[in-house]
């Protein structure tokens, strides 16, 4: 290729880049999986969700077959799309070959060839876009059947355009299905903390800031079916998600929602009618949702049924005529392509050079859960530990609790932290398995241990602020590993 | 002159002599310095006492001050906090834990404009308003000193008598003035009491007599013991009986001065003085803690009981050796009479009094006494002009 050709091609590429086609107004991004796809064995969660042949399409109004543009061209499987807030880009997970691992791609919403965005060793899935173009995704891709537990759990990562990815979550369980709330937080699915690692995990919704700080339980903490998937923020402030009983899998899922005004007290059915086999729900700008539902078979298995896309308004009493119904395909995900207000950002307080974070607990005795064996004694000490293999923990240290129950701790950053309150005789009062973390330089606070949800603190000066924080280090000599459960 | 002058000298424990000039005229009518007898109404006559102590719910046996507010509520300043008598008769205490500046409440005054109560305590000046205390101290405000002996509210200004001068807090402008030996006609800054006069303010100054302050002109006038010595009363009826003023009270043109050496009365209309000492006059004791004026009647709280007088007639309420109540009556043209009462003051050491036409309340060192009057209410003494 001559230099002149290169220059011309480069110029063309530049022009093309500057004239990125935009999807026609009212277009949908659609994920379709083959109806007759064979399930793969010993493979990943994504391979089950999006079997070979799965594709991401752009569907322009009136949504006929002649107005379809494949956005995942060149990939053997694709799905899990997400549209950027300016409506110009579609991000999705895809595989370039059967042997390849899942990565995140992006393509111009008006069409074009997908562009590889991530190169994560364990693969990447679940793209979401936060403020300022920050891509959020999960990595590695969990093995099939290992959604809630894994030897190497999937963590959330962030990645600014043109930059290397950075890890956001540090919990002991998979962090998947991220979506970005209007207030800028990342809402995702992970396992609820549980005392015994052998206890089956149940899933709940959590939030972090877009720098991984302030990990917080958001909803679905044991108040319903414990399989939770695909949370989405609706225009009316509700959070919609799919749910099912453990072991039934996503194809038997139904849609529920919580009101953001009281997420722990308002869990209920998303629709006014009963329907199972919901594959996805996505908000639209008009306040409706686009739902993918299987309606053909009571079995509701995706391999035998046919998933269609429905537009559902808040007051609808039943599913109406499908918006997208292709008998050869399961239409499992659909979302509008339109410019929407970008979520808020978050000015990070992380200090990358630091290896510690600081946490203040206002009163370790302030808890929504009773102490072990009904022990009414106030906590005298707080023990901090980190996981050290399945069922094992390593104690960082034990510090005295101030008279008002407050403590301030300076703790290692980016490791899951467990906490136990102890009475004066050393008996464990309350046990918090390792599930929280601090980012470097992060200062955060909690009201208590197992604190009441959605509560602001009482305006009382904690005694612990009158002295400096207790420092606990994570070293190989910290302590011997011991059973994590008291 | 139809007045007999009686000179009396009495040895004190310290061998000092207190010489007092007493005026007492049996069957006499008033001269220029004496009210007209015929026009003087009878003094209110106490029929019995109701007494209250710690067993009745008082927070302390020692009651320093008593005040019945314009809304009818009775307030007590005790050594253990402020106390109010509820409508059901129960006593409710407020202490430092409620915001009161100090547990010892020495004096109280009501701001009739707002209904607020101002409290002189051993550690600052407190305002009790709408159930809430606000405290002024020498460190957080312009109050001259934290020990506040007396308090009065006069024309929108709260006066506080302290050992470092009289502090005047103007409620509207929230500004303080301090009157002491540097800017007022005071011998020294130690003030014990404040009383509103007619357009003037009377400041009772320890060892400084009485200082009259005219807010309009900003001028001062001191009333001092003419003989200049608290141990002697060489010039009776010519000025304050002593410079050591323990209390002052004013009503209907009459200024009363309490001292530990006798009682003085100043008629502002004709600028005349009368003075009394114990033994040679009906005054029950020279040691006067406070004096309360209602109309032209003075209620005198002493270490030996209570004297009630209009300057002519006297009733002394004392506690006998056996604890019995006794009243000794002095009337013009009559011999003194002593009568035993069915009830007695809670204690003879009386610290403060509040009275109106219907009742009187006595703060004593060992309880609170409530006096009920005989017969129909006497016409308010101020109605008659001698």
């Amino acid at each position, binding site marked *: 290729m001559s230099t002149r050709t290169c220059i011309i091609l480069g110029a063309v590429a530049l022009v093309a880049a500057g004239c990125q086609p935009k999807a026609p107004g009212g277009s949908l991004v659609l994920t379709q999986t083959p109806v007759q796809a064979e399930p793969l064995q010993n493979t990943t969660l994504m391979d089950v969700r999006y079997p070979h042949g799965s594709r991401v399409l752009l569907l322009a109004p009136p949504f006929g077959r002649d107005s379809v543009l494949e956005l995942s061209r060149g990939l053997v499987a694709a799905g899990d799309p997400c549209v950027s807030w300016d409506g110009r880009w579609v991000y999705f997970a895809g595989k370039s070959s059967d042997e390849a691992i899942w990565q995140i791609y992006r393509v111009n919403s008006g069409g074009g060839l997908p562009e590889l965005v991530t190169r994560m060793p364990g693969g990447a899935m679940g793209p979401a876009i936060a403020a300022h173009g920050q891509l959020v995704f999960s990595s590695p891709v969990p093995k099939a059947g290992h959604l809630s537990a894994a030897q190497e759990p999937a963590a959330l990562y962030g990645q600014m355009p043109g930059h290397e990815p950075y890890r956001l979550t540090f919990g002991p369980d998979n962090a998947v299905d991220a979506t970005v709330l209007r207030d800028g937080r990342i809402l995702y699915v992970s396992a609820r903390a549980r005392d015994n690692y052998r206890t089956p995990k149940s899933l709940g919704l959590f939030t972090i800031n877009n720098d991984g700080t302030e990990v917080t339980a958001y909803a679905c903490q044991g108040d319903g079916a414990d399989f939770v998937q695909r949370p989405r923020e609706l225009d009316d402030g509700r959070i919609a998600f799919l749910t099912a009983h453990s072991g039934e899998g996503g194809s038997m899922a139904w849609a529920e929602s919580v009101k953001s005004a009281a997420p722990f007290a308002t869990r209920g059915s998303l629709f006014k009618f009963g329907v199972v086999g919901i594959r996805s729900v996505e908000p639209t700008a008009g306040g409706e949702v686009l739902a993918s539902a299987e309606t053909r078979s009571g079995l509701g298995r995706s391999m035998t049924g046919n998933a269609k896309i429905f537009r559902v308004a808040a007051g609808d009493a039943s599913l109406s005529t499908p918006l997208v119904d292709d008998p050869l395909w399961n239409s499992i995900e659909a979302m509008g392509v339109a410019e929407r207000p970008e979520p*808020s950002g978050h000015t990070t307080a992380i200090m990358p050079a630091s290896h510690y974070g600081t946490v203040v607990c206002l009163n370790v005795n302030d808890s929504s859960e009773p102490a072990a064996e009904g022990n009414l004694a106030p906590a005298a000490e707080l023990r901090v530990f980190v996981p050290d293999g399945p069922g094992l923990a390593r104690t960082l240290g034990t510090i005295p609790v101030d008279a008002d129950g407050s403590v301030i701790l300076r703790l290692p950053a980016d490791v899951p932290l467990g906490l136990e309150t102890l009475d004066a005789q050393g008996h464990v009062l309350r046990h918090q398995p390792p599930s929280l973390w601090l980012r470097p330089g992060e200062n955060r606070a909690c009201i208590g241990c197992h604190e009441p949800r959605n509560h602001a603190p009482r305006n*009382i000066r904690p005694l612990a*602020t009158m002295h400096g924080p207790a420092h606990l280090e994570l070293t190989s000599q910290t302590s011997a590993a011991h059973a994590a459960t008291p | 002159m139809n007045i007999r002058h009686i000179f009396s000298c009495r040895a004190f424990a310290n061998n000092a002599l207190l010489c007092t000039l007493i005026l007492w005229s049996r069957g006499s009518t008033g001269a220029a310095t004496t009210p007209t007898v015929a026009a003087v109404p009878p003094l209110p006559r106490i029929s019995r006492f109701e007494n209250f102590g710690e067993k009745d719910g008082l927070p302390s046996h020692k009651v320093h001050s008593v005040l019945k507010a314009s809304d009818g509520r009775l307030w007590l300043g005790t050594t253990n906090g402020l106390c109010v008598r509820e409508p059901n008769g129960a006593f409710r205490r407020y202490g430092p834990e409620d915001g009161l500046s100090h547990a010892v409440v020495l004096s109280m005054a009501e701001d009739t*404009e707002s209904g607020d109560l101002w409290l002189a305590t051993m550690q600052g000046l407190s305002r009790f308003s*709408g159930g809430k205390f*606000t405290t002024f101290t020498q460190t*957080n405000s*312009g109050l001259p000193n934290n020990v506040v002996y007396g308090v009065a509210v006069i024309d929108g200004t709260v006066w506080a008598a302290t050992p470092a001068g009289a502090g005047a807090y103007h*409620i509207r402008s929230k500004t303080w003035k301090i009157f002491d030996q540097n*800017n007022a006609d005071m011998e020294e800054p130690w003030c014990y009491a404040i009383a509103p006069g007619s357009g003037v303010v009377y400041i009772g100054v320890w060892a400084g007599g009485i200082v009259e302050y005219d807010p309009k002109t900003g001028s001062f006038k001191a009333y001092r013991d003419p003989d200049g010595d608290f141990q002697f009363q060489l010039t009776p009826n010519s000025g304050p009986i002593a410079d050591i003023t323990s209390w002052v009270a004013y009503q209907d043109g009459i200024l009363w001065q309490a001292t530990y050496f006798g009682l003085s009365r100043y008629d502002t209309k004709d600028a005349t003085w009368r003075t009394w000492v114990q033994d040679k006059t009906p005054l029950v004791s020279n040691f006067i803690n406070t004096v309360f004026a209602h109309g032209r009647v003075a209620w005198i709280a002493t270490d030996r009981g209570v004297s009630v007088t209009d300057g002519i007639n006297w009733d002394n309420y004392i506690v006998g050796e056996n604890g019995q109540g006794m009243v000794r009556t002095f009337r013009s043209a009559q011999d003194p009479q002593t009568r035993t009462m069915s009830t007695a003051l809670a204690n003879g050491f009386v610290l403060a009094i509040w009275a109106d036409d219907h009742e009187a309340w006595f703060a004593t060192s060992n309880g609170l006494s409530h006096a009920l009057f005989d017969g129909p209410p006497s016409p308010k003494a101020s109605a008659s002009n001698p």
Partner: protein
Amino acid sequence: MNLKRIIVVTSSLALAVAGATVGGLSGMREHERIRSGLPNLGLVSCMKCHERGLDSLPWAKPRPHHDSPDGIAVSPDGRTLFIALSDRDEVAEADVASLAVTRRLKVPGGPFGLALDTAGNRLFVACRNQDRIAVIGTRDLKELDSVSVGIRPTAVAYCRTPNGERLIVPNSGSDDISVLSVAPLLELTRTAAGREPYSVAVSDGGRRVYIANRMSVHERLLSQPASEVTVLDPSDGHVLNRVDLQSAHLAEGVTDVPVRGWVINSMVRVRNLIPITQVKDGWVMSSGIAITRHDGSVTQVPLDEANAYFPDPSGIAASPDGRRAYVASGGADVVTVLDLDRLGAWLDHAGEAERGDAPENMALSYRYVAARIPTGCNPQHLALSPDGSRLFIAERLDDGILVVDTTSLKPAGRIILGDRGLDDPIRLGERVFTRARYSFQGQFSCRSCHPDGHVDGLSYDFDGAGVGDNLLANRSLCGVAGTEPFKWNGKNPTLQYQDGPRFARVLMRTDEIPQPQLDQLATYIKHLPPTRTVPWSRVGQPLTPSEERGRKLFFATRRPDGTPIPFARQCQTCHRPPLFTNRLMTSVGTQGAQDSSGVFDTPHLIGVGAMAPYLHDGRARTLEEIWTVYQKDDLHGVSSYWSKEQLNDLVEYLKTI
């Protein structure tokens, strides 16, 4: 030869210039050292001390005025609306049916609060800037009478009592309440209020009035603040009760709900005693209402939701049937509709513990919030038509009155008062100042801590390198122009720096304010004039003798015995007029155990009388305490020779600055 001479001359000149320069610099440093008392100051601007006059400052210059609606009052027949336009010195009359402004009247003095008599014949106007109540005849729309009251009256209420007609006026600047008779128009009493009495509601058939005090008061550093609701008997002005709303501030609104025996305050539930490690879950503050019964019992409940906030609650109105209340959230441009039936049912059902927990329970309000009505910019005052069918919302920074049909809760029209003033950068800046969208989840605005640009009287523990070691008193923004650097640590050379990335990181916890809006915000703040602390009648008047003595003390260079006062410890050195700051860092011996430094920015003193508490962490509740409690070794001015009278004089003078 010539060359040699030239070289010699040139060298000599160069040496002389160099010498003069070095000497001059040395002299300047020595001048700075002596005059500031600070070693190693380095070269600083001469303007630090040799400040220009105040006339050149932005707040001293003329600025555009707007038709910002303040207080509103509806005629008894519901047909006419009266609107106070304090920025215009006008009162407007509007026809409700046609939504047209029918007449305007010039009312000097910043008309802010309005009330009508029972028949609607007389309109009473609280003129905030001239400390007076004006009486307007509504038929001719003419001013009939006027009377002076306390400093900065913000509201007026009319009621009939057994003793006659009464007006109740909260004087926000003098912290007291005027009780007036109407005929004749006389001030009968002036009663001490809490701090910044701001609004008033007549209750219990005219037997009580409730006055909301906007600012909170705390007894000592790090104790819980409370805003007072002062309850008066309007017939004689006697104080019946002082109800404390714990941890409440900016309690600006109050309304009576006679059907239920409630009085409801809008309020902010502040959490200033907790280190500000986060904003999430209302960690810094949240909005709510306080329900006070006539027995004085109070229940606070949130206005906010778990993940949505409605800050700067201000105006509040209750429907005549007592079934609804409306609360304007000036920071969110929303009016919240409260279902009082549901709220009452919850109150009846909730136990004591649940009621006690309610102010912190961010997931409670969905039980009783019926709707959120979007409004124009910065809604503050509200009024309901007498039959409750129309809600009037003063959209302060949009120059309009939004009329809402209370049946459908939909807009029924808008009364246009002005052009919104969007070409005025000061007003645009005020929009930024009052909007909460620049904080995480829109939880609070600049105004939430700086009402009217002033202080909120609280100290906050800001997030820093650690937790619990950065307690700082709020500082007023009024009169702040020209006093840079900002912040107690003097790290912010400009307002943009202060309010931009730094605030986004340590307080707002979201994106920093975009540069255009940040510039507008800085413009607005620079135009905030100092707070007036003396009565209007005393403006421009000579000092009183006490104030004059205090002034001499402030500028004293020698003790009475002639001993010189070191320059560095003279008041005027650091608090140098005209701004009363030399804008330098200095130590006055106030470093606390938790403070990482004892050197702080020298605050300006213009309006200092209204800026309590004092010192960097707010430890001094009053000006007196600066010297009676927290003075150390005469480091904060040489005060050891002062008598108590002199200290009082100094305080009186400071209150006039």
